[in-house]
């Protein structure tokens, strides 16, 4: 296995770079290889994290990050290679409590139990008991309050965990990990579901904990965050270790190049596009006001061939406006006109019939049916084209589906594979494929690139531009700067109203300031 040896040599050589301290590293993985049948998920990779640092682990989907996390947290054993904690070999896989004392991972998927209180979640299965042998809830709750106070987590232990915000939930999970004695915490895409302000609070908390001696391994698709919060970055690509370097020494373009394997991925988008003034507007929104006050008096127009961004922090109302446009919600007042037609408010089929294509906010919840095949998911919204009288012609469905798969370069062995078997980026492509299946006049996307890798992201954004060039109007509701960069103009929402309109070519700080409701000129 020459290639593996090479990867291993590269890994250890780089991992050693200028970090030979006396105390053993918090965690060290050496020459770790993991195979699942014919596929190699990790090939001789190494990772060294020293105490007190925040180490980033990046890589495209399928690079082997998740596999390494499951090995580092003791959910799986490596086929080859070793893992040590503080210089000692890793405990046996079955010894869960030993693992919990060394390492914890806050996953994207929650590991708390929503129907139970925060206190009970924190001390699940290790309750305080009274003299009678029964649980002493007062003691459990007091201990939970102490724990949360010690790590300054501002949550009432009596709250039901299901009522917590994503951010609070993460803090509670971190506190629980710390209560087991773990001082090495893996954060798996912690910011994926947070808005800007919450991310800042999370980073503030990470810095505080770092000062208290906690070490973090930070996994994220948002490269900007890595520059903000991390000391070192390790890049994986195709199951191999590519580079480990201090973030300061690795410019953004080089980092992207290391992840994607080519240097051209991060070029700036600059293009001139003509909008068709003669054609009817793809979308006209007049005086739209939400029933629950999430947005008020929103008016704008999108010309055919134009890409308009709808930016704003979480809770600003951008998502709700976009969902109203496609009929997922109905507004209390105002009107929506798609390509000259006024669909019945609150009716998704009507909006789709009027020519809308829709990529919803959360692909897992609203985007696809995980157990259905790529072909079925891709053609879910166009039953009329699948055959007559409500019968589905599998031949016709597969023909449409393979068209979509080619068009969006979806990596799937077969159109009959369930969508749950695809990587995140390819799942999102399936959702996108469905939105494009009926040649929409208006394409509405909410957070279209959340949680997907750099290459898929570039691809999807290119696809959006291509769609606009073909004459469709595009509305992108997102707070992701990369999504908004493709827009001809960006409308910024703040506290339920459209406050600012920014033309193409803005600076990041301008837009972020507008989203946070700050005025840079003041």
């Amino acid at each position, binding site marked *: 296995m020459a290639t593996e040896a090479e990867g291993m040599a590269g890994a250890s050589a780089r991992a050693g770079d200028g970090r030979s301290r006396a105390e053993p590293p918090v965690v060290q993985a050496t020459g770790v290889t993991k195979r699942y049948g014919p596929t190699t998920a990790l090939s001789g990779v190494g990772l060294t994290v020293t105490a007190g640092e925040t180490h980033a682990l990046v890589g495209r989907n399928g690079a082997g990050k998740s596999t390494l996390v499951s090995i580092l947290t003791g959910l799986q054993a490596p086929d080859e290679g070793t893992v040590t904690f503080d210089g000692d070999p890793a405990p046996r896989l079955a010894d869960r409590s030993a693992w919990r004392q060394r390492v914890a991972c806050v996953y994207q998927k929650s590991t708390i139990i*929503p129907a139970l209180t925060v206190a009970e979640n924190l001390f699940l299965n290790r309750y305080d008991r009274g003299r009678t042998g029964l649980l002493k809830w007062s003691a459990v709750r007091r201990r939970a309050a102490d724990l949360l106070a010690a790590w300054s987590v501002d949550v009432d232990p009596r709250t039901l965990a299901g009522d917590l915000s994503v951010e609070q939930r993460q803090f509670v999970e971190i506190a629980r990990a710390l209560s087991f004695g773990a001082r090495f915490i893996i954060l798996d895409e912690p910011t994926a579901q947070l808005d800007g302000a919450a991310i800042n609070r999370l980073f503030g908390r990470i810095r505080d904990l770092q000062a208290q001696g906690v070490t973090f391994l930070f996994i994220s698709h948002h490269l900007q965050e890595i520059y903000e919060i991390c000391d070192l970055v390790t890049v994986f690509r195709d199951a191999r270790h590519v580079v480990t370097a201090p973030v300061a020494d690795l410019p953004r373009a080089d980092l992207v190049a290391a992840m994607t394997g080519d240097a051209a991925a991060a070029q700036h988008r600059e293009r001139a596009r003509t909008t068709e003034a003669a054609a009817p507007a793809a979308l006209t929104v007049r005086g739209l006001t939400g029933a629950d006050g999430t947005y008020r008096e929103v008016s704008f127009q999108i010309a055919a061939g134009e890409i308009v961004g709808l930016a704003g922090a979480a809770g600003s109302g951008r998502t709700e406006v976009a969902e109203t446009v496609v009929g997922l919600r109905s507004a209390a007042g105002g009107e929506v006109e798609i390509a000259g037609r006024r669909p019945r408010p609150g009716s998704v089929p009507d909006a789709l019939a009027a020519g809308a294509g829709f990529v919803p906010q959360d692909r897992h919840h609203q985007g696809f049916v995980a157990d259905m095949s790529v072909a079925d998911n891709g053609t879910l919204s166009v039953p009329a084209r699948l055959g007559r009288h409500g019968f589905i012609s599998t031949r016709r469905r597969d023909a449409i589906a393979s068209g979509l798969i080619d068009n969006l370069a979806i990596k799937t062995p077969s159109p009959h594979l369930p969508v749950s078997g695809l990587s995140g980026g390819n799942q999102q492509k399936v959702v996108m494929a469905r939105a494009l299946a009926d040649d929409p006049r208006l394409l509405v996307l909410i957070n279209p690139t959340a949680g997907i890798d750099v290459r898929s992201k570039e691809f999807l954004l290119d696809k959006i531009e291509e769609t606009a060039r073909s004459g469709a109007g595009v509305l992108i509701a997102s707070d992701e700067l990369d999504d908004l960069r493709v827009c001809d103009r960006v409308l910024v929402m703040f506290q339920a109203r459209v406050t600012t309109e920014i033309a193409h070519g803005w600076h990041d700080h301008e837009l972020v300031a507008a989203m946070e409701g700050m005025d840079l000129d003041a």
Partner: protein
Amino acid sequence: MPDAALADTAKDAAAAGAKQRVLIGGRIPLARLRDLALVPAILIIAIVGQIVSPVFLQPDNLLNVLQTMSEIALLVLAQTMILIVKKMDLSLESTMGLAPGVAAWLVVPVGAGHGLGLLPGGWAVPVTLAVGALIGAVNAVLIIRFGLNGFIVTLGMLIVLRGALTGISGGQTFFRLPPSMLYLGTAEWLGAPASIWICLALFAVAIVVLGWTSFGRSLYAIGGNVDAAKAAGIRTDRVLWIVIVAGSLLAALAGLLLSGRLASVASAQGNGYIFTVFAAAVIGGISLNGGKGTMFGAFTGILLLFMIQNVLTLAGIPAQWIGALNGLIILAALIVSRITGGKVQD
């Protein structure tokens, strides 16, 4: 229940500002009042019952209500545990018939119906309970060990066990049960039927176990998020085994009480009970999706259903219409609990 306890002993109600839940009187979180949601309904029915017939609040009538519901209430108890761990057991109603049925088959002397007279009368109770445990073990093996769908497994068992009872009894009713089988269904302790005491005691134990022991809390953890429960070190399979086997054991006990009270085991004993059991559990706030609800809530659910039936009987509603009204009551109770619960039921 646990949080009501928390609230009681809460001395340092450290308010976390806006994030804190709405508290009534600063002590009991509103959501926890959901457990008591049916108490007003029970009081209203009591008042209506008294207006309809002065007999209603007489001790004899109330004991009668409690006794007629005691057997099915044990099934509700069993089903509630099983629902909390996000499983289902439809076969409980057949277990309730088959377990005492097998005991009667082995014990009742030859010549009286289909009895074999193989065992002396004293064996009847142990045999009943053993059959219950065995049925639970079979369910558990199929569901946990082999990973089969619990709904379908227990649906199959429901049919198999019912058929087995019809087979051994030849479709007839076992009479001339031994005294040991009759005892629990007929004895009076402290002036009230033993079955009432047994039922209330088991509910009290279940309330304490579910609210104040780590075993009980692990049921909620498993039903709420089984991966998180595993990650917290709970032996989920073992807990599921215990719950399923205990459920069938309770169903066998319920069957024993019913056979004792009726001094017979009909081949249709328990037939159709499961629908009332589910209705009572759901009305009582148990989620079919697991992890939610309390034993006390389930008890108020079955109590409410039986009180309403009793009131209808006292009001002289023709017996032919009771079935339709029962269905309507279940629907109405669901609607009421949707309104008081405020959330979409799942």
